[in-house]
């Protein structure tokens, strides 16, 4: 995998509508992700995380400010950035077989069929699926977790040094979620890619990231940027039991909770 460049966001504002109906989603947002980093972006629902990701990937243009990849501005999808969408069920094409789905980005690049198929099988294996078993099936025949792996495999097939993931494990059951988290970590380790994960799950963000960026406020902006010093060898049992893990997640949770008005925070009733 080739070494990518840094992804830089400078004072970005994104609003929808105009005049009195203008709805500012993010404002004055700046951040930077360097090659090889694993960054998680957290925030409460509706905070503009998905909007930010869409600006990063070139699917949307910011109203003002710039998103740069290396030296060039990102105004439309680029070859170096792959996106894994939240709705894997919706983003996999039902009429294509699994390997066809994975190879589709390559088809778009004009790669020949035999080469594409081989690459697709490699990517399927990389995400822990057996190409012989699932390659010729249709997406709906696989479980949710497996479908999300296929979506990730597709992102890998694109051979981009930067992987953006929008709440990738939210619709998957809890056990599969842990497996997929570890898969993502191992992929990053093996391939040396840059990964940016947008999530509302604080535990997941702290578990996965080298850094956690906390979004908050209306319109949203960066309210914290903390380095996760839990080491490089993360595992579901050890890391999550680590007291430092609890400290970090408490800090993030407090900031996010602080965004809510006191009456919005539910109190337990015995």
């Amino acid at each position: 995998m080739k070494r990518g460049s840094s992804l830089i966001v400078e004072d970005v504002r994104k609003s929808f509508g105009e005049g009195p109906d203008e709805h500012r989603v993010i404002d004055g947002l700046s951040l930077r992700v360097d090659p090889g980093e694993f960054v998680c972006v957290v925030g409460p629902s509706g905070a503009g995380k998905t909007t930010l990701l869409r600006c990063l990937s070139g699917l949307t243009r910011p109203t003002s400010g710039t998103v740069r990849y290396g030296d060039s501005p990102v105004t439309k999808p680029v070859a170096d950035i792959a996106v894994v969408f939240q709705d894997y069920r919706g983003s996999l094409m039902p009429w294509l077989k699994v390997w066809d789905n994975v190879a589709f980005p390559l088809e778009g690049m004009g790669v020949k069929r035999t080469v594409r198929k081989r690459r697709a099988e490699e990517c399927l294996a990389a995400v822990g699926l057996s190409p012989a078993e699932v390659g010729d099936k249709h997406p709906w025949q696989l479980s949710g977790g497996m479908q999300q792996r296929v979506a990730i495999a597709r992102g890998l097939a694109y051979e981009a040094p930067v992987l953006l993931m929008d709440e990738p494990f939210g619709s998957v059951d809890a056990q599969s979620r842990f497996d997929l988290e570890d898969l993502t970590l191992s992929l990053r380790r093996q391939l040396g890619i840059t990964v940016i994960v947008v999530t509302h799950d604080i535990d997941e963000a702290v578990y996965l990231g080298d850094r956690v960026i906390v979004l908050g406020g209306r319109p949203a902006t960066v309210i914290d940027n903390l380095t996760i010093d839990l080491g490089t060898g993360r595992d579901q049992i050890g890391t999550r039991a680590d007291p430092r893990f609890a400290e970090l997640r408490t800090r993030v949770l407090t900031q996010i909770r602080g965004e809510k008005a006191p009456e919005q925070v539910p109190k337990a009733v015995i």
Partner: protein
Amino acid sequence: MSTVHGRIRGRILLLQVSAVLAVLALWALIGAAGLVSATALPGPAAVAARFPELAGSGEYWQAVSDTLRGAVTGFGAAVVIGVPLGLVTGTYAAAEQSSRLLVDILRSFPVIALLPVFLLVLGSTPSMKATVVFIACVFPVFLQAQYGARGVTPTIRETAVSYRIPRLLRFRRVVLPSATPSIMTGLRLAATTSVLVAIGVEVLTTLPGIGHMVVQDQQGGASAEAYAYILTAGAIGYSINLLSQLAESRLLRWRPPAHTE
């Protein structure tokens, strides 16, 4: 496992056969009780008796082929013109918005009402029949193709865009397959309509075909034969429906199973 399944299917078949027999019995009863005149509703036995003779006569098959020829010609033209146009207008939203109201108005128009006008302009010819069939079929086909092209979900569209899939490939591998279910529905509707309109034209003009035979027979008092032709028309419509569903299930094998029994 298979015997249980087979037994259930056998039971359903039995039910269906008994339902058909029940209806036939009711039909015979109405005729026998004299509730309706024999010319309005001849008994099932009388109608059934006509079939062997009709099947042997060239006139019968000629009428069937006349109807089908008009229907198929109009239908074919409608598909060739309607599907591409629908796909194009469905892909470009601006065109779709502009044509929406116009197509809505034209779609709700009963094409058969154009018959007196068409008789004036084109006269009573087989090509007039095919033209009327064409106009009746082109709208459902066009609309369904358009609906299908528009129906590409935003997620899928964005996925294709984010992976920078070139436009032509996107059309071939994303829009077209996504639109196929809708197009197939349109074809199914149009196929049924084509036979319906063809017969309608034949009833109202002297153009040859099943409709004309029904008129002729009824006017000549041979209502059992007229009913035989009506049942033939029903059989044709039923087969078209069956064939379309078969084609659909073949072409759309990739579809996840919908609500099952």
